[in-house]
């Protein structure tokens, strides 16, 4: 049985004040997630990730299509008791303490009264908030609210956990802890479906990922499979500050670092560039295959780097196939391949 089965789910909103026009937030989406997997749902802002999660949670209604979670329809109350959901940038009742909030959500999820206190204490400890359980939520920082959000999503020990941007608002330590928590959930046999625009998180955690852009599914596979399907690249470093004319004619981006030059190029041009360097009597220092990353796939699918507009850059993580130039580096030539 699939943990999640999305069968042509589609959402079109009607926008505008007087003359309403249709805006397709999600094109027909077909997707399955197996039980026990960590599944990453990737895409820039406005890609349709949150819309998909809202459709699965029954917060918005599909224009067409359907979905099943744990083999049950989206409006099945038995299914809802077996899932947990963390919305993006969660916000909770200001005047409740973290413990009271979790008790409330536990009651709504049908957790037995005699187990509730123990579960709340355990989950507070799990998200590192055991000391803050009695503090009103209005006094919580954004990162602490995010932890409470994660706590309420796993409190009732759901089989499938949906997390919308779970790392948002967390400091590096918090992100590390959430990553560990997601891995723990997997080791407990739970399915985790999380959306993110931070590719390093997805690459580090996910068994499989789906890339969504402008409401359309662009690809779904294991991370390695996605990257493997891309054009291979190599990095060549040589001594000196000159670039042979033949190499410049290819339009390869060559950068200088001290007294060496470096270029990253498609594997198919490797022999041609090496011959050109040898012809010019330039000493080749290294030739290294570049590991293709999820980010490379992402950029290829989206056409261009996407600004997230949230302060977190989708490309701000150490995943680049093209290493950042040193501070004294500067590009010396660029043209279209």
């Amino acid at each position, binding site marked *: 049985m699939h943990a999640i089965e999305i069968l042509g789910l589609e959402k079109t909103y009607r926008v505008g004040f007087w003359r309403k026009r249709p805006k397709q937030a999600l094109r027909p989406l077909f997707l399955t997630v197996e039980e026990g997997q960590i599944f990453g749902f990737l895409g820039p802002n406005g890609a349709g990730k949150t819309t998909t999660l809202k459709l699965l*949670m029954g*917060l918005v209604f599909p224009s067409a299509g359907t979905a099943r979670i744990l083999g049950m329809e989206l409006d099945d109350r038995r299914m*809802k008791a077996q899932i947990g959901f963390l*919305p993006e940038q969660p916000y909770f009742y200001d*005047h409740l303490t973290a413990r009271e909030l979790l008790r409330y959500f536990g009651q709504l*999820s049908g957790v037995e009264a005699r187990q509730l206190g123990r579960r709340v204490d355990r989950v507070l400890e799990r998200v590192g908030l055991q000391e803050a359980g009695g503090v009103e939520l209005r006094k919580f920082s954004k990162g602490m609210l995010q932890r409470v959000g994660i706590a*309420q999503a796993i409190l009732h020990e759901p089989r499938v956990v949906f997390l919308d941007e779970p790392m948002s608002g967390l400091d590096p330590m918090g992100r590390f802890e959430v990553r560990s928590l997601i891995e723990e959930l997997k080791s407990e046999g739970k399915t985790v479906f999380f959306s993110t625009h931070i590719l390093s998180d997805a690459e580090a955690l996910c068994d499989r990922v789906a890339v969504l852009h402008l409401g359309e599914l662009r690809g779904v596979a294991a991370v390695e499979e996605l990257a493997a399907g891309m054009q291979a690249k190599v990095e060549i470093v040589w001594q000196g500050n000159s670039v042979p004319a033949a190499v410049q004619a290819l339009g390869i981006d060559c950068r200088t670092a001290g007294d060496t030059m470096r270029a990253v190029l498609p594997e198919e041009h490797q022999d041609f560039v090496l011959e050109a360097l040898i012809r010019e009597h330039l000493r080749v220092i290294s030739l290294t295959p570049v590991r293709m990353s999820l980010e490379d796939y992402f950029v290829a699918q989206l056409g261009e780097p996407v600004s997230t507009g949230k302060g977190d850059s989708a490309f701000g993580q150490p995943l680049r196939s093209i290493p950042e130039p040193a501070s004294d580096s500067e590009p010396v030539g660029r043209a279209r391949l």
Partner: protein
Amino acid sequence: MNSRVLHIAVNTFREAVRDRVLYNLIAFALLMSAAAVLVGMISINIERLVVVHLGLTAISFFGTVIAIFIGIGLVSKEIEKRTLYTVLSRPVRRWEFIAGKFCGLTGTLVVNTFFMAIGVFLALAYVSHHLNSFDFAVLVAVYFIVLQFLIITALALFFSSFSSPLLSAIFAFALFVIGSFAEDLRGFAGMTHGIARWLATGAAYLVPNLSALNIVNQAGHGQGVGAGLILFNSAYALVYTLAVVSAAVVVFERRNLK
């Protein structure tokens, strides 16, 4: 009561209490204390009338303000702050959420009114030096005010289920004002002819008849209130409230929580 409705109601009540909603009781207590002392000094033989009028009007005013200003945010605030997402992703039906919110705010208003009513009776006891059987009418008047709160809360919740807080406040307050003059509207309908009569009659029966639930004058003058009126008003308020809350549920069941 359904346990999820109960949990949502208790949470709504707790939020309202912690949000200092009941602080209005302090203002009310000060008002009643000052009034009891003042009217004792400046009124001759109408102390009771003044205290009853002032007390019941204050109960009605404070309760209506709370019903409208909290009621309009019951749903829209939860959507705006996304607290609703974590509730509805659980095994909670949308109607249970609406019912729980309604019961929670109604509970808050009942507790609030209970304490204010004690204040009115204390002030009455102070100016009259004793309570008598005529004061039963004051108790019935308080009960009718609670029935008004049921209707106003339901209306605020209804508007909140599809509209912004500002528009919800305007709509709910407008209906409160029109409803307070519902008897006059019915009288006006009786004087018109043709299509105007149909429209005015329709409007008169559509808006809540809050004026029928206002017996402050009778209570002030110590006039008795028949059991028939109590039963009729109770049935009217409950049916009207149920209809409006049901309408809120119907709207909310279809709403996309964008």
